[in-house]
């Protein structure tokens, strides 16, 4: 299977958008980078956990052992926060 072998910030943004779109049943293009998970996207806590697990799985394919710390979740309020967080951990 082909796939991403290296991840940069635009690639991470695409992953976050795509996974979030799957979870929220919306179009990826409707998810703005500055969108708030709760206020703009109506994502509940379970949807955010789905996102976290999906990111760990997908990013983990390129970066084995990639993990999002639970205590950091409260700081991830927007799509941008999530993208910056993941990018910084690569």
């Amino acid at each position, binding site marked *: 299977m082909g796939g991403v072998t290296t991840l940069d910030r635009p690639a991470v943004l695409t992953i976050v958008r795509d996974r979030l779109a799957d979870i929220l*049943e919306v179009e990826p293009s409707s998810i703005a980078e500055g969108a708030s998970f709760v206020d703009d996207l*109506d994502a*509940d*806590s*379970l949807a955010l*956990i789905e996102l976290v*697990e999906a990111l760990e799985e997908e990013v983990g394919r390129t970066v084995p052992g990639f993990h999002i710390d*639970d205590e950091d979740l409260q700081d991830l309020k927007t799509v941008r926060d999530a993208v910056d967080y993941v990018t910084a951990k690569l």
Partner: protein
Amino acid sequence: MAELPLPIALDVMGGDNAPSQILDGARQAVAAGIPVTLVGRSADVGDTFGLDLFEASQVIAMDDDPAKSVRTMKDSSLVRAAELVRDGKASAFLSAGNTGATMASALLRMGRIKGVSRPAIATPIPVPGCTPTVLLDAGANAECTADFLIQFAQMGSVYACHRFGIAHPRVGLLSIGEEDGKGNALAKEVNAMLRAGAAGPNVLFIGNVEGRDIMSNDVDVVVTDGFTGNVVLKTLEGGMKFFAGKIFEAFLANEETKAAAKVLLPALMPLTEALDPNTYGGAMLLGVDGVAIISHGSSNATAVLNACKVARDMVQGELVQALRLAVAPQ
């Protein structure tokens, strides 16, 4: 009825009466020809009387935070049971444990049916003398959009058909008046969408219903948001418990009423059985990619047996496939 090809993954650690009553229910299910795999901590379960046990070292408590516990307790009986379904080793997932964690486990491990925005908890509300009314959402989603409720109408209709054999379930929207214009903003919006056919031709929308209609023969499926649905469910449970308690109190008041009770109690037994939540086994989590049953925390062995029967029937009746078709774009 043909045997299930795969066992039901039963969280033997979940519930107020776990593991003893859960194990007893599992033994009865196996005796009835329903294969079951227990999931839990062998040291707590003890003798399984020959039933298979999948070892899981952790237990999510009834008051643990649902999402967090599922994420941090990956070797819990709840998470492992859901994984058995995901991995094709079990046909259904059943727990009487922490409701939120059961839902989170099912959602995170089994996934959602493609197209489903939010899974909903569908609870049968007993209606003595006729088929139960399916109430959804009974607590999975406190905050709902109109689109969620349209899907609840679709999924509830399919479930009432599969579970209770109702060919064309009558679907009502819970509101504070029967007229279309009654209700809060969400109810008005959903009413207008359902009237316009947003749920598709297979949903027989009969308009708004009120709380008093739920335990009547006027409606088969009642759709509402998870906050309201859970309040309704708990209010009904509390009201029925209070009422039953007062009846028995009156029966025991004096010798004369005790004598009357001897005559009346046999006549009341069918009603008691019809209203007993153990009779129905549990609520179905609709929208996840597999059969997942959330049983009452106080489930006894009978409830577990009945829930296993429901799980078997829903697997064999291909409920999930029917739901998949129901929520597919029209």
